[in-house]
């Protein structure tokens, strides 16, 4: 199933032929969940060289909701997030095993192009990284232009819509041709979100998107995430547990490369089943 039926698709974008997930359902209830999930992660293991970073992680990420990933530094949060759009392909020593499906399609299947996966799964990084040689407008449209979209009217329309979705349009509409680095830190991060949205992904991954921002800019980003959740599946890594509690529907707690607990956010924070989770969310370690 595809929750994100788009009115305008990228001309060059070939979607991977959708094959229904042939995972044998363990129980009828579980099968129902699997069919509805955006991501279905099964037995995910990641190594960097001989370092076993993620150990047998399995979870399902629900559509049009915010899923938060929490855990102490070095627990594999970012590694997990980066497996979801195949960013590990860029690291020669990284090895990924297991199965991740996006709306039923195997992301690591034979013949699946990682570039196409990344067009469907957008990503926002911890440190805002607008391209320094480009203007604000060019930064937003770069993904479309370099993927072959040429029509000027369509580019302008997508640019404005993406900037509006990122709640940045009113602040930059009079200086679209200014260099992207002339924006403040918080604006740059929202510009990066607009840039990711412009290619109309189906999912948005966020790797601590507000950790380098002041409280006001953080509040704006959180507000934006709550807005985007109406249309997008969002997976966010955060160090800030209050933030996870404020914006997410589900929370996964990682520790030492293992998924310790995955549940509804309010249960993770008020009534965790695992001792380690409780220790972490109450600030006893990490």
């Amino acid at each position, binding site marked *: 199933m595809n929750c994100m039926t788009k009115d305008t698709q990228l001309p060059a974008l070939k979607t991977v032929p959708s094959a229904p997930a042939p995972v044998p359902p363990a129980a009828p209830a579980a099968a129902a969940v699997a069919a509805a999930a955006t991501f279905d992660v099964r037995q995910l293991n990641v190594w960097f060289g001989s370092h076993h970073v993620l150990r047998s992680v399995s979870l399902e990420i629900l559509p049009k909701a915010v899923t938060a990933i929490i855990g102490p530094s070095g627990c594999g949060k970012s590694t997990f997030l980066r497996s979801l759009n195949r*960013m590990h392909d860029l690291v020669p020593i990284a090895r990924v095993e297991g199965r991740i499906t996006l709306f039923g399609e195997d992301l690591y299947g034979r013949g699946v192009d990682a570039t196409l996966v*990344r067009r469907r799964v957008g990503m926002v990084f911890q*440190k805002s990284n607008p391209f320094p040689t480009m203007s604000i407008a060019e930064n937003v449209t770069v*993904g479309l232009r370099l993927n072959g979209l040429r029509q000027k009217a369509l580019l302008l329309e997508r640019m404005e819509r993406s900037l509006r979705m990122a709640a940045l349009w009113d602040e930059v509409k009079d200086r679209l041709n200014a260099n992207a680095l002339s924006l403040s830190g918080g604006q740059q991060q929202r510009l990066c979100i607009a840039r990711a949205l412009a*290619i109309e992904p189906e999912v948005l991954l966020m790797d601590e998107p507000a950790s380098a921002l002041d409280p006001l800019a953080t509040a704006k980003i959180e507000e934006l995430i709550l807005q985007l959740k109406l249309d997008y599946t969002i997976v966010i890594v955060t160090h800030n547990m209050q933030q996870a509690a404020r914006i997410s529907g589900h929370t996964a707690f990682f520790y030492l490369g293992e998924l310790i607990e995955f549940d509804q956010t309010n249960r993770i924070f008020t009534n965790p089943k695992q001792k380690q989770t409780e220790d972490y969310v109450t600030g006893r370690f990490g």
Partner: protein
Amino acid sequence: MNRWYHHWRKIKSSCVSALCLLCALVVIAPLALVLFNLLQKGASSLDLHFFTQLSKPVGETGGGMANAIVGSATLVGLAGLIGVPVGVLGGIYLSEFGSPRMNWAVRFAADILNGTPSIVWGIVVYALVVLPITGYSAYAAGLALGFIMIPLIIRTTEEMLVLVPNSYREAAFALGIPHWKIVLNIVLKTAGKAIITGVLLAAARVAGETAPLLFTALGNDYWNHNLSQPIEALPHKIFIYASSPFADWNRQAWAGALVLLLFVLALNIAVRLVTRGRAPHLAR
């Protein structure tokens, strides 16, 4: 005791500062001396004729090095045709595509070539190109200079590309942009000015090379617009004129040396101007 100690430290500090200043002067002094000497001996021979006329026969005064100046520009251009594409693409390969083992081999080769005396290039091109194929010609000389440029440009290009923060590449990959487009439109654009700087410096370096020209360009005393024929170049002309027994030629050699130095100086100043705008791009 305490005051005396403080005093002693101040004396040590001034001594070291003075030594540093001395070393700095030692660095600058040769350039100042060379420039001063050349201006003194060459400037008086520098007139419009020097840039517009061919050399006069022995015994006649006047004349110039017009063919050598044009020849030098031609040779640097020819060298650039070979050195810039190979060097820049090689640098891109090292920084963006190469495997560690291959990179090690290419870097090692480039460093060895960078240290190779330029006359060796002259002999290599003489043996492999001049003798069997072209004879003394502008092509052969351009090839020799181009070979000298390649390792210089490979290394500077690679160094500049490595300075481009990985976060830009990651951001572009996360947008589903193909690798080659990322390199072309984002990485190269970010490092563009720095790469041009490297190219200009390499051009300045080969513009002053004399040794490889002895075996390849040969030199002449007339206009030659046929690139498959021998061609004159400024450093070669200076070499011939300076080692000649004629006072008027010696005088012109000084003028030629001054022009060559000013050309290299101008290229270096151009580099400074180009890199001035670089800060916002590679600052982060």
